[in-house]
């Protein structure tokens, strides 16, 4: 774990509350991840993905491409799907991030349930990002049209798109049913 990160919820910062940050260090950036507060004290240009993975060991957000092409690193930022690989910590700071680990931590989210029912897995590497994209879509469009589904930018190399399509349709049903 990089030394420049600390989790105030788990361990208070060393040096006591009165210790001023070293002058050459950038200011600590506060960020909420899955409802817990954290600070990032390293390079503010570091993408959120590496903070989640390397610092917090939340490895459900996957590395796939570096530049927002694949969507495997999707997380929710204040409820909206974003590419964690392309969001610097300076931009993520002061926002609330929800990763796949924060979704359905106790009970499965209906979208996760739909993914299991449709067996939208194959290698599974892209699926956490696909699920985040679907949660975002179904929040905006509870009954998505083909064009809405086609607009999801996530890629899947295994060709699990037939199951993903079924999973999105099933998730829409489950979410509708839940509202009744």
């Amino acid at each position: 774990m990089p030394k420049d990160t600390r989790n105030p919820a788990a361990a208070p910062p060393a040096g006591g509350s009165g210790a001023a940050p070293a002058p050459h260090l950038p200011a600590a950036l506060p960020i909420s991840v899955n409802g817990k507060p954290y600070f990032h004290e390293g390079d503010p240009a570091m993408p959120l993905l590496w903070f989640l993975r390397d610092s917090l060991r939340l490895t459900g957000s996957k590395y796939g491409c570096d530049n927002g092409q694949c969507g495997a690193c999707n997380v929710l930022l204040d409820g909206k799907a974003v590419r964690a690989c392309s969001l610097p910590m300076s931009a993520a700071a002061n926002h609330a991030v929800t990763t796949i680990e924060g979704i359905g931590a106790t009970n499965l989210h209906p979208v996760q349930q739909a993914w299991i029912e449709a067996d939208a897995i194959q290698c599974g590497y892209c699926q956490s990002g696909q699920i985040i994209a679907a949660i975002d879509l179904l929040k905006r469009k509870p009954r998505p049209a083909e064009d809405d589904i086609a607009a999801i930018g996530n890629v899947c190399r295994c060709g699990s798109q037939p199951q993903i399509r079924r999973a999105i349709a099933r998730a829409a049903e489950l979410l509708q049913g839940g509202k009744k």
Partner: protein
Amino acid sequence: MTASFDAGRRHFLAVSLTGTGALLLAPVLRAAPLPNVPAELLGEDFTGLGPFLRIERDNRIVIGAPACEVGQGVFTDLPMIIAEELDLDWSQVRVLQLPYGGGDGANPYGRQGADAADAAARTFLRHAGANARWLLLQAAAREWNLPAESLRTQAGEVIASDGRKLSYGALARSAASITLPAAPPALKSTAAYTIIGKPIATADAREIVTGACRYGIDHYGAGALLAVIARCPLPGGSLLRMDDSKARKVSGVVDVIELPHSTDAPAVAGIAVLARHSWAALQGRALLEIQWQPAADTSESSSALIAAAHAALDGKDGGIPVRSDGEPLRIRKQPARHRIESRYELPFLAHAVMEPPNALIEINQDGARLVAAVQDPDGASQWIARLTGLRRQNIRIELPRGGGSFGRRLDNDYVAEAVVVAKAAGKPVKLMWTRSDDLQHDRYRPLGVHALAASLDRHNRISAWSHRCAATPVDARTPNAGLLEATAFPAGFVAHLQQSFHPLSTHLPLAAGAWLDAFRTFAIESFIDELAVVSRQDAVKLRLTMLEDAKAPATVNGVECTRLAHVLRRCAARIDWRTPRTDGRGLGIACHAGGGGSFAHAFEVAVEGGQLRIHRAVCVADIGTVINPRNAQEQIAGATLDGLAATLQQAITLKDGRIQQRGLQDYPLLRLGLSPRSTEIEIIDSTDDAVDPAFASASAGPALANAVYAATTVRVRKLPLLPELMRLL
């Protein structure tokens, strides 16, 4: 409590009870136990029982999965085989990934290979389940004082003829003292199967959808440094000079290491940046100032290779003869209206696995531990032994889930690199490839041009066929291997047939595999469609006429005529082939025999608002005996979409000796928008030998191109199809 006994000449069993009373069926370790073997991953050095079971007192069963899961379904399908022979209820079963079991002599887990189609591996696992079932039957027989022959097993219980039942869990203690017979217990008849052949969902689906599943890249290792490598972008090139002063100033960078050049290791020339975390390593690498020494030729380009291919095909040199049946000049003798010729251009392709290659390695004096998704763990073990001098029995390999493979993880180049870096650093290392590394340093599918010509007789049957291919060989010793062999369709179906091959030279490392079938089949199945169009024949009927010729034998050069004709007929029926489409929609079809399987694809497409829409995809596949129909459907759908994506969008191109693709913006993977709105897969019931479903990808590309022609009258003969179609429209 542990009991050891002789279980036949070769096998020494240790049947032991854990503190909680669980029965462990595991071997005595002939050598010293390997470090870090989790107690729940049972067994090393044992071949009688196979991948190993843990039977809890409450009748929960743990089954070990022997092969590395990369999306091909082995984590679910292989344990299903054991569960079947053991007569379990699948809901009792929890699956655990086994580590690599080889290293010193025979591998107790059998072949820990790439897919579930390996017949020997399947048989091995069946015996594993049958042996355990036999032990439990004997235990129950002893308990009840009844002959074992009078007992049966069902859903994790032994049942007596009078209806008494004992769970496997209850029999655990007693079974611990029984010796396996010298002759293996009988296997189940396929008619009695209750698990194999039933659709079963991915065993670790919940872990995956919650982000809990740890892939190779998700393993960090205690004290391991994150490493990325700057590799020479010029194939075959080397390092001239570099300045790492800026890289070393990056906070978190620990070391910069010039990789020792070695002809022994598969790794290319490079400089490793080691850091405390990924971002520092990536930043450090970006700040390296490097001058590379090119290999002799830096002018190599894809366009020049394609031009050279055409020149070779235009020239007087006939190339390497591959096959010659009947009269060589038959086509030229035909009147022009009965003769057609076409050329098809195919680019290099990359594997582009979703999870770029990575490996975590810890090396010390006594042994090594590798955590990496590798499909050839035996090869990985050999590389580690060679590069470290360690004995293979002291090398432990854990096999986490891998994010795709498509053949990529059969190569252990990234393992060898990680070992070289870890040795030089003297520390545990997690080597990570970026997407750019992955696209630039793969082994690629060959590039080439196919020249096809044929003539038709007065009955509109194909009477002469010429297939000339100019391509970059995978294997220099047998240049045409995999690309255009003497068995290539329609060899054996056409009286006058010539095939020849012109090798092209490239510095790029190339790879064989199922994608070579797609390389060849795109041209052949596109061309048959062209012949059908020119001669105004139905494209299905033209193919069936060849396959169902009464004079043809049942199997022609690996093509099982009846099976291939059957999948073609079913596919045509599923897509409603005879109903003409309107609204600019078009249908295309193609078929292919490969890897022992028979496949047919059909697509319904249209160009709407300047965009290609794939309305329907159908694949009918005969892949022999299927363990898990649900996974088989997904594998065939996956291969179909793989063939589709490669045909539509993907190309690796060389220019000035360098690969131009640096990210997925240059090498698109399939998105939902371009995927078929409806995908229908039909698997033919079969008891034949199992087939790797990856071979299904080959006929998808030409079926799609044929559908594009039907919808647009544009015949695309140059891949990738989509940019070429948009240019031609």
